[in-house]
């Protein structure tokens, strides 16, 4: 590993060094430095427009990094096309979920499993585990994904990301627009992933979700990471939350 993390922390699986991204005429990322330690859940927080989604899309190669280095397990990602990034074992759940509405739940899952040509070739034990996390996927297995509710679509999007073992999950605001009860289910499922030592980089606006899941946290503002540290530290320090996120936990 090129960059040693803080003493005692696991090595970074993904790291970004001075990453700049332009979208058209707009300069969105102004030198992002970020590390995602292996086997941990890293929360990426920040206000709207801070560059969280752009950071994830830059890692996936969906928007090219203009400058800087993106390294995954020692390999430079910034020059790779998106499919090659995914093939290294990185799964991406976009903010829009990226569900194929005309395809059934089953077809969405088969598509996500690069090793399976049809439903019969899906790893059944793994599928049972996913059905355990998200029972709705079993119920609506043969139904068009477009007919699912928002929460069920989010579950499908995450189920799709874990249909085969992946080394890193990039998940963009899974709680967005969901009813509180559904968010509770989602947190439970993500906790299960966390218990399995899955490496996750999770963008979140909802601080309750963030504190429930995060091991470490990075806060972005105006295209830069302005704070990095353990989640517990940010949870304990209300003044820091106020300064970084403009929220106070007491209000919740």
């Amino acid at each position, binding site marked *: 590993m090129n960059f040693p993390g803080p003493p005692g922390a696991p090595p970074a699986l993904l790291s970004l060094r001075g990453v700049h991204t332009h979208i058209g005429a707009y300069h969105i990322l102004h030198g992002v430095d970020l590390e995602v330690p292996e086997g941990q859940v890293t929360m990426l927080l920040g206000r709207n427009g801070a560059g969280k989604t752009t950071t994830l899309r830059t890692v996936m190669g969906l928007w090219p990094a203009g400058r800087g280095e993106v390294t995954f397990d020692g390999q430079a990602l910034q020059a790779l096309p998106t*499919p090659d990034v995914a093939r290294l074992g990185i799964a*991406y759940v976009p903010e829009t979920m*990226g569900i194929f*509405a*005309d395809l059934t739940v089953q077809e969405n899952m*088969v598509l*996500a499993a690069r090793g399976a*040509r049809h439903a019969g070739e899906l790893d059944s034990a793994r599928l049972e585990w996913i059905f355990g996390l998200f029972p709705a996927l079993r119920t609506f297995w043969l*139904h068009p994904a477009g007919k699912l509710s928002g929460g069920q679509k989010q579950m499908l999007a995450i189920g799709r990301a874990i249909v085969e073992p992946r080394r890193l999950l990039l998940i963009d605001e899974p709680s967005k627009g969901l009813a509180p009860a559904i968010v509770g289910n989602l947190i439970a499922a993500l906790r299960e992933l966390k218990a399995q030592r899955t490496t996750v980089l999770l963008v979140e606006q909802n601080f309750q979700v963030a504190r429930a899941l995060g091991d470490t946290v990075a806060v972005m503002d105006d295209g830069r990471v302005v704070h990095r540290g353990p989640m517990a530290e940010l949870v304990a320090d209300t003044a820091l939350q106020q300064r970084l996120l403009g929220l106070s936990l007491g209000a919740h």
Partner: protein
Amino acid sequence: MGSSTPGVSTAPAATAAPSVPRAAFDWRPVALLVALPLLAWPLLGSGSTWLTLTFAGLTMGLIIFVIASGLTLVFGLMDVLNFGHGVFIALGAFMATSVMAWTAGADGPTVAGVFAAMLLAMAVAGAAGLVFERVIVRPVYGLHLKQILITMGGMIVGEELIKVIWGPQQVALPLPQDLRGAWIVGEAAIERYRVLASVIGLVVFVALVWTLNRSKLGLLIRAGVQDRSMVEALGYRIRRLFVGVFVAGSALAGLGGVLWGLYQQSVIPQIGAQVNVLIFIVIIIGGLGSTFGCFVGALLVGLMANYTGYLAPKVALFSNIALMVGVLLWRPQGLYPVANR
């Protein structure tokens, strides 16, 4: 999704019984397809005329479908407007004139020659498609206006090259003796060649539907039509898939060119430009990117052209435009709009 689909029950499903209706198939465009011949019946008066025209219309529709199916997938998958698709039709048709001349026996062209022409036309049109994609389409990904201009330019160049090889004049493409004539059903004449062309069109349709719905390749194409960057994020190289679809679509246009040329029994270098208008009407009516919509749209166009050609030849030219206007007033995104577009 359209308003036609029944409401989704939000009650949590308890056990095995699914609470969401199974993919509600939208029958109304198909009903339109059935209604058109029924509407034409009283206007035509005689049942035998109706049968002859309906069969001719379905044949024409199936040939148009073979030609247009590749174009609608190319548009759906990569957002590429290929106005040069017609050149592959012309190439296929002219290949047929040569192959059938080479294989002609003492008593004229042979049935084996027809099949040889189809295979060779597909191979040559597919190869031309590969070059066309690389040289003309690839530099203008994502630029619609440039796509329209440069692909039209590509078609003009292609048409001129065809004139260099086969000459500018009309070339006869006679049917083999065994495919001429008709079977008489009651008083209606069912032409033998049209039966063959229809069977080939149906085989192409079934093969396409099977591939799209039952294979992983088809799954990738359908997903790519809806959201290609997500397909890439799942780890698939969609560029390669697109080149494959472009080549296959060009080969099908070549096959369609052979069928169309034999249907007309003659070929002119401008055949591509002529058919281009029809296939664009078809893919717009069907819903850009939708294979089943393309199928229904092609049959509607084929039927409409034959009925109006018989009833009011002067209106025939406008009838398909009128059909398109009517369909778009009813469904602005076509009969079967593709989700996420």
